[in-house]
């Protein structure tokens, strides 16, 4: 991932044009297509880039935390660059929805919670514990009295989140599209919303400014040569950058072939951007499509299963110089990697080391691109 120089100050106030759910009401994930309005003279991006998004925490979560700790939201606190109210600090500056292991350890001491201290001594257990909780879950389970200053000292600064850009400026010059899966789950007796995805999906109003920046992603670029075939592998929201890729190649009139390998849960519920892919095929730009819907049938089918089934064809594309792209959840990316190794062993007869070398070489030749996230 390229490093934007100064996140805070290069930030651009985009406005929300559109926020529409693109999965059906009965789908498991609430996935939103978001369109933000930008000034192309100020903000420019390329296919493959992600958008960094700053967000405000959920006011309901802030109030619940204040109540849990019996703290006054109006209490002044200082955060390095000046004074502000505790409420504002919790809402705009501090991380509430991701719990860091150090925060758990510190809280165990404050609350004199022995069982928590014991757990915190085991790094793996601590990571797992933090991974499925928000700060408020910790506080509610192990009450302690602290003052406002201690609280802001304990919490880490709010970090922006990244979202793959799902549009091409060649087609939407003054817009940027995102495909956001709203993190929402029930745990520890309350409803939880992801910080950024909850903000984007549920709280930003029309015309509200959203502070964003472009996170360049040099490792995830279309081939220089528009005639090079590409294999686009993604599950869930991992398909977002491919929408941008196809838009860009369409705008360029590129002749390269495209093979989309996409997985999600249900064909009828969460086939993200189905109409876009159909239109691309109709226009002659989508030459092969392999789909894996994991919950339509008794047996799970994932993208890696489809790749294995079509291993021979995959090798043919690679022989033709195709670039491979993999985007989406890390576990999927790893499973795809293993499937590729198996295909190289099974179909091309490579031994395990040679198969690894083959993929390494692809990577070094910038023909194997991965953009994975947890």
């Amino acid at each position, binding site marked *: 991932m390229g490093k934007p120089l100064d996140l805070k100050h290069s930030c651009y106030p985009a406005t929300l044009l559109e926020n529409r759910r693109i999965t059906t009401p009965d789908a498991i994930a609430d996935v939103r297509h978001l369109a933000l309005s930008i000034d192309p003279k100020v903000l420019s991006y390329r296919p493959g880039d992600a958008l960094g998004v700053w967000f405000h925490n959920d006011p309901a979560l802030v109030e619940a935390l204040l109540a849990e700790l019996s703290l006054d939201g109006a209490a002044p606190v200082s955060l390095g660059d000046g004074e502000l109210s505790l409420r504002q600090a919790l809402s705009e500056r501090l991380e509430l929805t991701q719990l860091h292991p150090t925060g758990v350890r510190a809280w165990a001491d404050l609350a004199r919670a022995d069982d928590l201290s014991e757990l915190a001594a085991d790094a793996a257990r601590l990571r797992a514990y933090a991974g499925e909780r928000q700060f408020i879950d910790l506080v509610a389970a192990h009450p302690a009295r602290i003052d406002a200053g201690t609280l802001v000292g304990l919490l880490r600064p709010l970090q922006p989140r990244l979202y793959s850009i799902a549009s091409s400026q060649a087609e939407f010059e003054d817009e940027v599209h995102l495909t956001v899966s709203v993190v929402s789950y029930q745990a520890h007796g309350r409803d939880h919303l992801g910080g950024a995805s909850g903000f984007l999906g549920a709280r930003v109003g029309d015309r509200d400014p959203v502070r964003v920046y472009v996170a360049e992603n040099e490792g995830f670029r279309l081939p220089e040569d528009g005639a090079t075939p590409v294999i686009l592998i993604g599950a869930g929201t991992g398909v977002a950058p491919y929408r941008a890729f196809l838009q860009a190649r369409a705008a360029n009139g590129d002749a390269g072939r495209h093979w989309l390998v996409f997985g999600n849960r249900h*064909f009828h519920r969460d086939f993200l951007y*189905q109409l876009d*892919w*159909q239109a691309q095929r109709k226009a002659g730009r*989508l030459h092969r*499509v392999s789909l894996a819907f994991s919950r339509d049938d008794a047996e799970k089918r994932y993208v890696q299963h489809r790749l294995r089934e079509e291993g021979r064809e995959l090798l043919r594309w690679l022989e033709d110089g195709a670039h491979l792209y993999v985007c989406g959840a890390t576990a999927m990316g790893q499973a795809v990697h293993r499937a590729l190794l198996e295909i190289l062993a099974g179909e091309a007869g490579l031994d395990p080391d040679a198969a690894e070398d083959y993929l390494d070489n692809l990577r070094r030749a910038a023909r194997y691109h991965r953009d994975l996230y947890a």
Partner: protein
Amino acid sequence: MSAPLHENERIKLASHYLRGTLAQSLADELTGALNPDDAQISKFHGFYQQDHRDLRQERRERYLEPYFGFMLRARLPGGVCTPAQWLAIDGIGRELTSGSLRLTTRQSFQYHGILKRHIKPVIQGINRVMIDSLGGCGDVNRNVLCNPNPVESALHREVHEWAKRISECLLPRTRAYHELWLDGEQVGGGEDVEPLYGESYLPRKFKTAVAVPPHNDVDVYANDLGFVAIAEEGRLEGFNVLAGGGMGATHGDKSTFPRLADPLGFIEPHQTLAVAEAVVSTQRDLGDRRDRVHARLKYTIERIGLDAFRAEVERRAGLRFAPSRPVRFTDQGDRYGWVKGRDDHWHLTLYIESGRLIDGPGHGPMTGLREIARIHQGDFRITPNQNLIVAGVPEARKAGIERLARAHGLLAEERSALRRNGLACVALPTCPLAMAEAERYFPDFMDQVERLAHRHGLADQEMVIRMTGCPNGCARPYLAELALVGKGPGHYNLMLGGDGIGKRLNRLYRENLDETAILAEIDSLFGRFAANRQPGERFGDYLIRDGLVRAVVNPAEDYHD
């Protein structure tokens, strides 16, 4: 004058005996639909592409294509199946379709909401119990109706055999069905022959029914080809043959009309198949292939005249029709409850609202039938009124079956005479032609009608009431005493004046009414009927006698007056 052939004719001709590009359409993962041409060809294989119309707009906004699903209609001549077949039909419905079953007005069953990738397993599943869907829809002979008369057991068996033979005789011969669905061997390009249908099949759908008087539950006059069994002392002597019936009409197009079949004459049983083939081949050659609206046999007969048509059929079949034998029909509905057959077995006609078998909370007709099928040893017969007969029950098993039927709400007892004779087509949300609700709305509508009947002391009046979502007429609305034919959302044409035995067409009484206006009309007509009816007089007959409705004599000339 020569207009070009209809687009569907090109599709049929190019399909290589019904193959089209169905194999590619099925393999295409990007869509749940078929290529448009294949969506026409699929009908001949028994399935229709449909989509959930209520969801179209919403799905488009989510960048999702319409919710495509397929309706598959089996071929089940005379509606007869065994309990083992029923269990298989039921299991496939629950596993591979929307989870429900619908009994049709053509004595078959339909699955809805089949996903494209499940079409093949569904067809293979029914094939395992010797049921196919070839010609379930499409421009060929459809499922052959046959009066499921359980009382005249021996006669029914004999007549039903003829229904099956007619169905087999009029079945397409293409190997495409086997190749595509049953992994049958591919037959080289030119080897297929379709001796009866040819490469273009028929100009339009073709419906055949076999009636056993005095019951006209098959609405034999509504069919392109009708056989009326003539029996003497329970022995089949032959058939009166009828031709040229059909329900479909188009709103606002006065050149279209429903029509009753005309008598061709009497034949002996051994002449049956020759006549069936001759009628079909005459329609194949003389039917209108330019204009699908006028492509049914009824318009061919109107065009060339009945005498010329009869002569042509006689020439092709190599026989002369004898004069029709006199027949008398008494009803077009079902006889609910238990009846005892001549062979001393019992037969139970169950009530299935709109033929819809779906388990709801506290109501389980599908489960009930499954449980009955597990213990039943006779057969099942789907009736042309979308009900089901549990046929051939020995005295000793009667109580057990009745207990199950009662427990699952399958008995007609609690329903009014009005409701028991009702019929509604599928319409919204799945039927692509529907202009208004039918099946989903019919129960509510009947509540209102029952209320009015009660007010006028007509609660026990037998009456044939039907509703369809469009003028295509799948639930044979033009033969009802009172019918609503969908005109637009919430609006219907009110049709009145059938005779309750399926021998008189009704007539448009008021156009494009909403529910309030319809109920106001019915309220006033029921009032007049209650006050003026003669003993035993039916509602439809009263309307004609009192001059409220003028009888249709020759629809080609007086239907739109």
